[in-house]
C-alpha cells in the first residue's frame, strides 16, 4: 500500500530552506504526505527536524521552497493559519495551562468536549475528570490530553513530536492503536520518534533529514532500521551498540548504596536493592510505580516514610539535596527543565554545584573553574556553538549539560532518570559510553529508563519495580524485552529475597 511517490499528496513541501544568520538550519528539505499515510520524520539532533516542523506549523517562515497543501501553495504565517489549513501539532512539551482545569483548557482551544472525552477514554484514561487541575496531572496524562485534543479537532494532518517519549508501555500501545485508526480513517500523520520499534509497527514511510537536507524517503519494511540509522548518521557510523557480557562482582565488597524497605508518598511501598561501585543498575517500571519517589528520596528532594538508606554501609538521611550531594549522590532528573538554568551559559550551568556550599561563595578561581568546565564539556562532547544561553542548545546537548555538571563536580554515585528521553541516536550512544566510562572509573550508577532495550545497552543488572516494590532482578545480558515487560506488568513476581543472590556470577 505504500509508494515512494504518493498519489496526489495532501501535503507536499519541496526544497524548503531556512537560515538563522550564518547558520543554515535547513538547506533542501522535502516532505510529502498522502491522505491516510503515516510518515516518520527522522534525523539526528541538529538535522533540521524541529525547524521543518516549526515551518509546517507556522511558528517560523521558510526562506525558499514551496509548501503545497491539497495542491495549493500556502504560506503558513502563524500557528492559527496552520490549524485552518488542517494541520494540528502535538508538541513534546504539554501545551495546557497548569492553573486551569481540563474543561477550561478545552474552552480556550474551542475543543468540543464529547469527542475529546471519547478519545481520552480510547487512549487509556477513562477516569479523567473535567474538573481536574492540569497542574496536578502527571506528565503522561498531559500528553494523552494533548493528543485527544488534537484528534478531537479532526485535522487533516496530525503532527506528533515524540508523542510516546514520556509514556509508559501500556499507554504507548493505546496511542499507536489510535493513531493507526486515525490514518485508516483517512487522516495523515507526521510522526517524529526516536523509537524504531514504534516506527516499524506504525509508519508507512520514513523521511530522513541530515544536515538540513532530505537524504532519504524509504518505505518501511523489515530490516529498514539499519538503513535509516546509516542515512541519519552519514556513512560509516552505523552499527548497533553491543550488549555487554555480565560482569563479575567482587565478593565481599560493601555496596556503595543499600536501600532497604524504602517507602514514600502513596506509590512507593517497599523497595530494597544494593548498588555497587563500578556497576550500572537499571530500573524498569511502568509509569507511576514508585520509581520517581525512589529517585527523589535518594536525591534528597523528598522525605521517605519508612526504610533505610546506607551509603558505604553508613546510615544516611537526606533532608535537602545538599545532604545527598555531600554523601556523593548526584541526581539528573528526567525533565531537563527541572535541572537547567535556561537563560544562563553552559559554563554557569556546569559550575553550579561547585558554588553551592557556603564556603564557596567567595571569589571564584576563574581559570581553575574554566579548566574544570572545559574538561567536562570535552568529555561529553557538548556542542558549544550556542553556549551563551542553554535554552539555545538542542535537547541532546541540554541533557549532556545536566550530566556534565556532575562530571565536573566529581562523580561518586549518579542517579540518572531516563537520561535519553527524546534525544537522538548519536547522543544516546554517547551517553551509554559515558555511563560505562564512569562506572569503569568506580562510579555507581542507578539508571531508570523507559526504553527496555537500554537495559542491555547501558546496564549491568536491572531491577523491575511494580506497585511500589521490586518484583524482579536480572542480569542485563539475560534481560529480554519480553521478560522485562512481563515483570513490569507484575507477571513474574519472584520471591523478594533476591538481595542475597550475590553469587550469580
Amino acid at each position, binding site marked *: 500500500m505504500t509508494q515512494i511517490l504518493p498519489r496526489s499528496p495532501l501535503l507536499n513541501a519541496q526544497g524548503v530552506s531556512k537560515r*538563522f*544568520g*550564518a547558520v543554515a538550519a535547513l538547506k533542501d528539505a522535502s516532505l510529502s504526505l498522502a491522505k491516510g499515510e503515516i510518515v516518520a520524520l527522522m534525523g539526528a539532533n541538529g538535522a533540521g527536524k*524541529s525547524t521543518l516542523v*516549526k515551518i509546517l506549523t507556522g511558528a*517560523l517562515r521558510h526562506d525558499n521552497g514551496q509548501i503545497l497543501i491539497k495542491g495549493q501553495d500556502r504560506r503558513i504565517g502563524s500557528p492559527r493559519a496552520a490549524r485552518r489549513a488542517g494541520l494540528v501539532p502535538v*508538541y513534546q*512539551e504539554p501545551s495546557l495551562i497548569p492553573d486551569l482545569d481540563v474543561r477550561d483548557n478545552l474552552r480556550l482551544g474551542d475543543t468540543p468536549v464529547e469527542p475529546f472525552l471519547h478519545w481520552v477514554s480510547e487512549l487509556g484514561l477513562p477516569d479523567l475528570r473535567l474538573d481536574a487541575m492540569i497542574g496536578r496531572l502527571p506528565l503522561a496524562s498531559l500528553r494523552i490530553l494533548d493528543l485527544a485534543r488534537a484528534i478531537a479537532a479532526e485535522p487533516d494532518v496530525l503532527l506528533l513530536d515524540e508523542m510516546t517519549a514520556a509514556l509508559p508501555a501500556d499507554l504507548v500501545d493505546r496511542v499507536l492503536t489510535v493513531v493507526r485508526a486515525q490514518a485508516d480513517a483517512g487522516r495523515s500523520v507526521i510522526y517524529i520518534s526516536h523509537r524504531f520499534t514504534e516506527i516499524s509497527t506504525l509508519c508507512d514511510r520514513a523521511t530522513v533529514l541530515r544536515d538540513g537536507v532530505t537524504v532519504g524517503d524509504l518505505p518501511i519494511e523489515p530490516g529498514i532500521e539499519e538503513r535509516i540509522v546509516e542515512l541519519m548518521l552519514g556513512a560509516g557510523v552505523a552499527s548497533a551498540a553491543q550488549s555487554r557480557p555480565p560482569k563479575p562482582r567482587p565478593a565481599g565488597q560493601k555496596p556503595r548504596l543499600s536501600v532497604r524497605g524504602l517507602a514514600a508518598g502513596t506509590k512507593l511501598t517497599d523497595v530494597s536493592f544494593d548498588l555497587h561501585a563500578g556497576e550500572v543498575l537499571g530500573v524498569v517500571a511502568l509509569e507511576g510505580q514508585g520509581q520517581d519517589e525512589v529517585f527523589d528520596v535518594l*536525591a534528597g*528532594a523528598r522525605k521517605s516514610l519508612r526504610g533505610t538508606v546506607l551509603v558505604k554501609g553508613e546510615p544516611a538521611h537526606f533532608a*535537602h*539535596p*545538599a545532604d545527598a*550531594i*555531600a554523601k556523593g549522590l548526584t*541526581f539528573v*532528573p528526567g525533565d531537563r*527543565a*527541572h*535541572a*537547567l*538554568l*535556561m*537563560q*544562563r551559559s553552559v559554563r*554557569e550551568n556546569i*559550575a*553550579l*554545584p561547585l*558554588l*553551592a*556550599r*557556603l564556603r*564557596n*561563595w*567567595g*571569589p*571564584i578561581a*576563574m581559570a581553575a573553574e574554566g579548566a574544570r568546565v572545559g574538561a567536562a564539556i570535552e568529555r561529553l562532547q557538548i556542542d558549544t556553538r550556542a553556549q*551563551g544561553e542553554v*535554552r*539555545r542548545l538542542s535537547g541532546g546537548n541540554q541533557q549532556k549539560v545536566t550530566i556534565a*555538571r556532575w562530571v565536573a563536580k566529581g562523580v561518586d554515585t549518579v542517579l540518572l532518570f531516563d537520561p535519553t528521553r527524546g534525544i537522538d541516536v548519536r547522543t544516546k550512544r554517547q551517553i551509554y559510553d559515558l555511563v560505562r566510562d564512569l562506572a569503569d572509573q568506580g562510579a555507581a550508577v542507578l539508571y531508570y529508563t523507559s526504553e527496555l532495550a537500554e537495559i542491555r545497552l547501558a546496564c549491568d543488572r536491572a531491577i523491575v519495580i511494580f506497585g511500589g516494590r521490586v518484583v524482579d532482578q536480572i542480569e542485563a545480558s539475560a534481560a529480554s524485552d519480553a521478560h522485562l515487560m512481563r515483570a513490569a506488568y507484575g507477571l513474574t513476581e519472584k520471591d523478594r529475597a533476591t538481595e542475597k543472590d550475590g553469587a550469580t556470577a
Partner: protein
Amino acid sequence: MTKEPSRLSRALSDYPLIPLTLLLVVLVVALELLRPGIVNERWIANTIKFAIPLAMLAACQTLTMLTGGIDLSAGVAATVVAFVMATQVPVLGVPLAIAVSLIPAIAMGLLNGFGIAICRVHPLIMTLGTGLVATGCLQVYQRFVIASGSVVPESLAWLGTGRTLGLPNSLALFLPFAALILLAQRQTGFGRLLYAIGSNEGAARLSGVRTWQVYFTLYALSGVIAGITGLLYVGLIKAPSLSLVNPMLLPSVAAAVVGGTSIFGGRGGYGGTILGALILTVLGTLLTLVQIPEGARGVFFGLIILAVTAIYMRLTNQT
C-alpha cells in the same frame, strides 16, 4: 519552543550595555541642543552627584531582582538609618552612631529573608510589609529622641556635597562600591547563585544550594546597601526627615529595570543599572528644562521609561 533571535538581537543580548550608552549620549546631546552650553564640567559633576545615591539604592533592587525578588523596603531602610544616625550623633558620637544606625537596616533585611525564604511570602509583599512596619517604628522612635535633636556630621556632608578637582567626593565611595558589586555578581559564588536562583530555583536546590542561606544574606546585604545610601543621601540633603529617601524607591526600581535587569530574575546586572540611574537623572533634568506643566512632566517621565524598557527588552530578546 524558543524563538530564534536575529543576529542583531543576539549581538545586543551579548553586549546589552551598548544601546543604553547610546541612549544616554542621545539624551545628553538633546539637552545640549535644547540649552546650548549647559553641558559643562559643573553640570556633569552635579548629575553624577545626584545619580550616585539613586544608583546605590538601585543596587538593592538589582541584586534582589536577579533572584526574581525586589526590595521595596530599601527606601525606608535608608531613611531609618539616616534618621537614627543623625539623632544618635549628639549622644554617641559619629563613628558609633553610624555603626548603631545600620543595625535596624540589617534587622529589616533579616526579617525580609525570613519571610521570603522560610514563610515563602512573595518578596513584593514581604518587603512592602517590612517597610511599613519600619516606618511605624521610626515614628515611635522619633517621639523618644525629639529632645536630643539631630546633627548631620561634617564628614558625611563633605562626602555628599563636596567636590575635589571638579569631581564629586561621593565618587570616592561609589567607585569602589560599584567595582565590588560588578565583580561580585559574576566572579563570586554568591553572585552566581543569585542568577541561578532567579533562573530556576528548583534547579539550584537540586544542585545543592540551600536557598534560604542565599535569601537571608541577600536581603541583609540589601539592607546594608540601603543604609549606606541613606547615610550618603542625608549628607547630600543635610536635613534628616521621616521620609528622606522614600521618594527615591520607585526611581530605584525604574533604574534597575531601564538598565536591563529582568524583574523575573536571572538576567541583567549592575552595569546596566548604573547607566539606568544616569539616564533617569539626565531625563529628569531634560524634562525640567522643557516648559511644560509639572503633571505633564510626570506623564512624559513615565511614558519614556515604559517605552525605553519595552524597546530594550525586545532588542535583547528577553520576551
